[in-house]
Structure formats: C-alpha cells, structure tokens
C-alpha cells in the first residue's frame, strides 16, 4: 500500500474509533492521546524542525486556555472565537518569549524558556481577575457544537482529532515549503544558513509563533473538555516537558513521530495509573519515569528515528556501502543535533 492510501486508511480508522470503542474510560484515554499528540506536533514545529528545544510551552498552552475561558466567562465570547483569539494572543506573546530566549543557545535557551513559563505561572497564581490559584470554571448550562461543551466524550474525540489533523496539515505544509528548509538549516547549520542570507532570528520566531498558536488552541480545547482550569493544570513545567517528550519519544522533526510518541506515552501513563495508581504510592510515576530513562538512554533518536536509521543503514548496505559508511548514513537520518562537545563525524 502506498503512503497516501495507508494514511487515508489510518485516518478513516481514527475517525471511526468511537463507534467501536464504546467504553467511556477507554474513549477518554483516546482523547488524552490525541490531545497529547496535537501538543507534541505543535512543539515539534519549533523544537523538532527548527531545533529550538523549548521547555516553556506550558506558557502558550495556559494562555490559550485562560484566554478562551476568560473571554467566555466574562464577555460571553463563543469558545471557537476564544480559541482563535487565544492562539493569536499566544503567537503575539511568543514574540516576547522569543525576544528574551532566542539570543541564547542550547542549554541556556532551554533554561530561559523554563524561567519564562515559570514567571507566567506565578503571575496567574496571583492574578485575582483570572481566578488566581483557585482557577476558573466553565458553566455547563449551554451544550452543543456552538458552545463547544458536550456530554458525550466522542464529540471531544472528534474535536481533538480535527485539531490534530489541522496541526499535522500545517506541519506538512511547512515541511514542504521553503520554511521547512530554513528551519532545518537553522537547526543543523546555523552559520552556513546565515552566510547565505537566511534571517535566522526571524525564522526562529516564525517557527515559535506557529508552534505557540497551535499549542494555545490545544489549551482552549483542554479548558472546554475539563470545564475547569487552574495554573497547576495548564501552566506547570511538567506539561511543557510532556509536550516535548511526546515528540522526542516518537522522533523529533518527523511528521508522525509526536503522534506515535504521544500514543505510547499516554498508554504507559494511563495503564500504569489504572494498574497501580490506586495505591496512592506513586507506583505509576515510578514506572513512567523508569521508561522515560530507558528510552532516553537506549533510543535517543526516538522510535521513528530509530526505525528510519535502521532502514537507511539497510539501504546503504544493499547499495554496497561498507558497514562504517552505512552507520554514518543511519546517523544522518536521526534528525537530532549532536551534543555540543561531540565532534560531528563526516557523513558519506
């Protein structure tokens, strides 16, 4: 089966899933997986393709959730409009975020992004108008498509699936356009990119704004699904890390890597929670954390990255390359920048 056909089949299966899975708790797991996948895909735009490993994306997510909720609760705005407004607001905020973080590289950049998100969380924790630490509740009085409030979990499933499809479509468009090449150039060869006239600062910001927009939309969706938000649930650093983790587990800079990573992560998290969560002793956290460490240590380029590398190695060997050349070809596909102190081995 070729690629478009298999994609179509997978998409149809995804749309039909709620007709097969009737159990509400399993359907909820599916919604959580889709929402995590959407966030991973949004993070991937700047963290994967452009190589700017932000751990502050919860700021965008929280801004989206708070924007649509405040507009709804205090001004009666339609949540669809609120979602759009939240996305635009987050994209605008990303300019400030980028201004304060993008002049930094590597570890410094990552730590600055944590600091920015942490400051946003402290502000919301103390901002009375936004409910401070108590949070905000969305009333359930109006339901239906227009109010984006549903009694049936399946509706949220399709909503999350739709948002994921949009995010992936945008990623696909970026991948195919000049932006995709610019982003990859910024990640892999920033000096070379600059020397041929790529405005690095500008395109880093483009990647971040796009990513912020979709991350915020995911935040609004979360607010509409849970009907309750507070700083701990939509602005915590743990959230930022989960978004990045989905992309890293699946494979950064690949279209479907974050989806795969999010599904695996959500399943691990929910299964260990339902199996061991009742003990109240954090057994689920132990299993989840141990798996993260194992994956990071043994599969540093993610699941898709690892598969791709293996395929590339096989292809190179078949084409008559030496094992060393094949290894280099495999390394070339992983799409991860080497660590700062590692000398970049010459590729084929």
């Amino acid at each position, binding site marked *: 089966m070729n690629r478009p056909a298999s994609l179509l089949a997978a998409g149809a299966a995804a749309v039909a899933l709620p007709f097969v899975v009737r159990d509400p708790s399993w359907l909820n797991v599916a919604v959580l997986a889709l929402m995590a996948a959407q966030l991973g895909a949004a993070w991937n735009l700047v963290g994967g393709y452009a190589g700017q490993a932000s751990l502050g994306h919860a700021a965008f997510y929280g801004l989206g959730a708070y924007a649509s909720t405040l507009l709804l609760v205090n001004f009666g705005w339609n949540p669809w409009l609120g979602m759009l407004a939240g996305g635009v607001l987050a994209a605008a905020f990303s300019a400030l975020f980028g201004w304060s973080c993008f002049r930094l590289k590597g570890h410094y950049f990552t*730590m600055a992004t944590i600091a920015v998100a942490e400051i946003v969380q402290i502000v919301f924790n103390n901002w009375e108008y936004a409910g401070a630490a108590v949070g905000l509740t969305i009333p359930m009085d109006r339901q239906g498509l227009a109010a984006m409030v549903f009694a049936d979990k399946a509706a949220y499933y399709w909503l999350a699936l739709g948002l994921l499809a949009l995010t992936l479509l945008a990623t696909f468009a970026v991948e195919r356009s000049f932006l995709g090449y610019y982003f990859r150039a910024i990640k892999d060869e920033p000096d070379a990119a600059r020397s041929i006239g790529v405005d690095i600062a500008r395109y880093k910001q483009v990647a971040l704004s796009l990513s912020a927009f979709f991350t915020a939309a995911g935040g609004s969706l979360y607010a509409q699904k849970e009907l309750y938000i507070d700083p701990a649930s939509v602005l915590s650093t743990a959230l930022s890390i989960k978004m990045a983790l989905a992309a*890293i587990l699946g494979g950064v800079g690949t279209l479907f890597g974050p989806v795969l990573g999010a599904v695996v992560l959500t399943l691990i998290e929910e299964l260990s929670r339902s199996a061991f969560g009742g003990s109240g*002793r*954090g057994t689920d956290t*132990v299993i989840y954390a141990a798996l*993260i460490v194992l994956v*990071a240590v043994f599969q540093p380029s993610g699941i898709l990255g690892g598969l791709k590398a293996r395929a590339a190695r096989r292809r190179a060997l078949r084409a008559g390359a030496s094992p060393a050349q094949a290894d280099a070809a495999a390394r070339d596909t992983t799409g991860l920048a080497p660590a700062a102190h590692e000398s970049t081995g010459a590729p084929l």
Partner: protein
Amino acid sequence: MTAELLLQTLASGVLIGLIYALVAIGLTMIFGVMDIVNFAHGEFLMLGMYASFWLFALFALDPLLTLPLTVLMLFALGVLVWKLVIRRIADAPALSQIFTTFGLMLLFRGLAQFFWKPDYRTIEGSLAAGGVQLAGLQLGRPQVIAGLGAIVVTAAVWFFLHRTRLGAALEATASDKEAARLMGIDSHRMFGLAWGIGAACAGAAGGLLSTFFPIFPEVGANFILVAFVVVNLGGFGSVAGAFWAGILVGVIEVMGGLLIGPQYKTAIVLVLFLAVLMFRPQGLMGKTA
C-alpha cells in the same frame, strides 16, 4: 520599615543563600566537567534530607553528626547514577540528555513517594534547635549552623579542586577534555568523580536543611530552579562564582519578598535570571560564553 528588620532580612537571605550556593556548586561541577544539565539535582538534595531523617528517626542520630555519612551515601549514589545511566548518554544528543536527567528526577521522586509516602516530615529536637543572638539580631540556630556548614563544605570543595592533584585533574578535564586525556587523565573517572562530588554537595545541603526544613518527595523542586539561576549567575562551571551568586540570590529573594511580596520572590529571581542570561550569558564570574 526599621533598619533592624532590614538587617534581619539581609541576614536570613545570606543564610539561605549559602545553602543555595552549596546546591549550585554540585550542579555547576557536573555541568562544567560533562556539559550536562542535571535536572535530578534537587532530588539528590531530597535524598540527603531523607538520609538524615531516617538516621535520626531509626537510630536517634543527630543530622549534624551523621552529615559525613549522608555525604558519603550521596557520593556513592552520584557515582552509581553516572555508572548506570549517565555514562551511556555522554555522547548522546543534548535533548536526550535533558530527558534522561528529567526522567531521573521523576524516578527519584516516585521512589521516595513509594517507599516513604508523600507526607511532610520534620526533625524535632536536633542538636541545632534553638535560636542565637548575633549582634542584636535574632537568628534561628539551625539556619546559622546550616550556613556555616555550607561554608565549610564549599571551602573543602574549593581546596580539593585547587590544592590537590586529583582536583587539578578534574579542573583540567573541565577546561579541555581532549588535552586532559592526552596528559594521561582518565576522563571517564573524572566524570564519575564529578557526579559523586556534585551529588555529595547536594546531599550535604540536604542534611543541613533537614534540621529546619520540611522533608517530602517533591522538596527538590523548591531548589532546582534557584540552583539553575545561581549556576548561570556565577558562570557555568565556576565554583567560586556559584558561591557568591548563591548568597546574592538568597539576599535578592528575601529582600524582594519583603519589598514586593513573598508570593513574587521566585518571579523576581527568575526575572533577574533572564536579565543576566540576556546581557551577560557567561555569568558574573564565568570566563566563556
């Protein structure tokens, strides 16, 4: 606002700053030698606190007396973490390094909760309990002892780095791995040593804190962000820088809390952090950007 209150606040800022410095020294050493940011560093501190707590609760041994034991245990743990996990990711992409140490952070928290429950625990009736009068200021004796202890440990680390052959080898590895290797220094041994000392410093801070700070699985979260700020401010890899920066951050935090409001004290420190990152990314005492 009286001058006395101001002085009192200043003194408590210096005292907590000394603890921040000790935590940050361990972090900066690991970073300096290996270029790895250890997100699990606050958990070394947490484990140091629990070590002191259990030695006190089970054997009635005072945290001050068991401090050397706590330090040794954490040193061993640091070396073990390096041997089992970090060694394998030494040459991995920066992203997977971040996620490895982040996973370790979650793992240690989860294990602490699994074995010791999420309850807040305190050590009552330690030798350090009580207060001291110092030049007209009322200070908690545990805080003063912790501050002095932090100075002693920091001095010991500094002495080790600058006055012993092994310390010089560690410094050499930090400044140029390849050159150090050519001089016959086993860089892998140095990495393990850095993790051991780094964890031991955090463990010492934990042991000193345990006499006056609640002990719970997530306690490391209160210190890790501040430690990052201190490491940056002092310059990555600089022990002396981390020491002075720790005191500075402690003072800024309590003064900011006094003047603007205690709920914003972390935000003030973080804004300062961003400002330093932007305008002086090499830190106040760092050598290279």
